[in-house]
């Protein structure tokens, strides 16, 4: 990669096992087509992404299923992709606001790029990829 003389470092492969035991209902919910958030029983704050612990320092939370109606607040079409997304086609990432007031960042699919506008409506859906990865995305409302 370099025209100048170099020595090559030892190669190391890294992947992390990220614990999800405290937010397991969220990941299980995705399998059932539901998008869950947590709500603090003490201060009432609704959290998405879901958290086990509130910024008010209470850990007394309940699980709430979110509506799937979103208003797109902003978006971008990612053309130049990072190493682990090289196999994907260019993708659109958007931030949408749900009627509950929380915002969600996710891929926006099934629209032509020219159709996508700030302020438009989209539907938030849970998804399991063919490789089994649990995720969620904005898509065209029915």
């Amino acid at each position, binding site marked *: 990669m370099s025209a100048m003389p170099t020595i090559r470092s030892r190669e190391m492969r890294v992947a992390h096992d990220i614990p999800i035991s405290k937010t397991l209902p969220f990941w299980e919910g995705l399998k059932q087509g539901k998008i869950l958030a947590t709500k603090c029983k003490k201060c009432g704050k609704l959290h998405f*992404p879901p958290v086990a612990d509130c910024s008010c320092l209470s850990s007394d939370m309940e699980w709430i299923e979110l509506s799937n109606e979103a208003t797109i607040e*902003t978006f971008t079409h*990612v053309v130049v992709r990072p*190493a682990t997304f090289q196999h994907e086609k260019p993708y659109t*990432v958007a*931030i949408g606001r749900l009627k509950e007031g929380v915002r969600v*960042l996710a891929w926006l699919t099934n629209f032509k790029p020219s159709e996508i506008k700030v302020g438009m409506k989209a539907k938030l859906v849970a998804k399991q990829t063919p490789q089994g990865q649990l995720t969620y995305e904005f898509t065209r409302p029915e």
Partner: protein
Amino acid sequence: MQKVAVIGVGNSKFGNRNDVNVQELAFEAVKQSIEDAGVSPTDIEFVAFGSAGAGAWYEESLPAVTISEYCGLTGAGLVRCEAACATGSAAFFTAYSAIASGYAEITAAIGVEKMRQIDTPTAMEFIGRSGYYTWEFHNFGLTFPAYYALHATAHMAKYGTTEEDLALVAVKNHKYASMNPVAHFQNKITVDDALSSMVIAWPLKLYDCCPITDGAASVILASEEKVKELKIDTPIWVAGIGYSSGTANLSKRLDYVGLEAAVQASRMAYKMAKITPDQVDFANVHDCFTIAEIMAYEDLGFCKKGEGAKLIREGQTEIGGKIPVNVDGGLKAKGHPIGATGCSMIYELTKQLREEAVEKSRQVPLKNYIGLAHNVGGTGHYCYVTILRR
């Protein structure tokens, strides 16, 4: 609090520096700054070192110790600071605080990044993971250009800012970089070059993005007493430092047309320096992407919210305008070696305030002898604003 001055600055050549390892690169800036201050390495009591990508885009995991040893600084108090792209300013604040608090008399802030020892998709991967990995990268592969593209889309929708406006920032910063021998890019570009360049993360194109750059910058600071003792000709005083932070998840921000952390950090810095934005003679702002410079004009109070594009269209941020911005080429064209950028901003402010910009053609006119550095980490995840005064 003790008064603190910048007494020495150094900046390596920025660019593709695969002629040197990280220690050798840091040495270039450290040596310059120590010689500029007229002290010796053993006079430095505390070193705040800044690098964001240690062990990731270059091989050393504890570069503070390898670089300290290499530069003759072993024995000084030592810490590595990380505030993403504001790492250099975090190091500067740490070195400043050591003196302001009365702990030390002479300190150093050293910022270094070596970003080009790995391939570009892997570099983009590391930077893309620098938001909230679990919620923004893991499933969605958000890259750093994409983070700022989300802001550009929102700013364009709300205020009518255009892709041409963004291109004007790139054209200006390339122009000044071509006058700055330490800059990564030495070429001028046109609006058409920028608009026709490849899309990276729409609406941002290649020329809207800063390059992946190797570089180092170093700053030596001293107490008022030491400034007198060392008979420093032109001490540049730290008049104000402000800081703030923003949520890790972009989805938790209230809007995407500015960076609240920058608004709060600048207010704090202006208050400490007892000045208003119109008293600032010139600024170095965090233009990692062209939209970031336009938002910075607004967040720092150089214009009203939503009028940033007007400022660049009117040429008000060129030398001769209302407030020259990034006349060293900025991150956009001087380059953005992540951990070095904050210290490199202090280097530029100091040179300008001493009226010794190497190239006279890009010396800014000084009325109040006040310069401002605005250094954002992540997408408004961290922000430091530093005001220097001669």
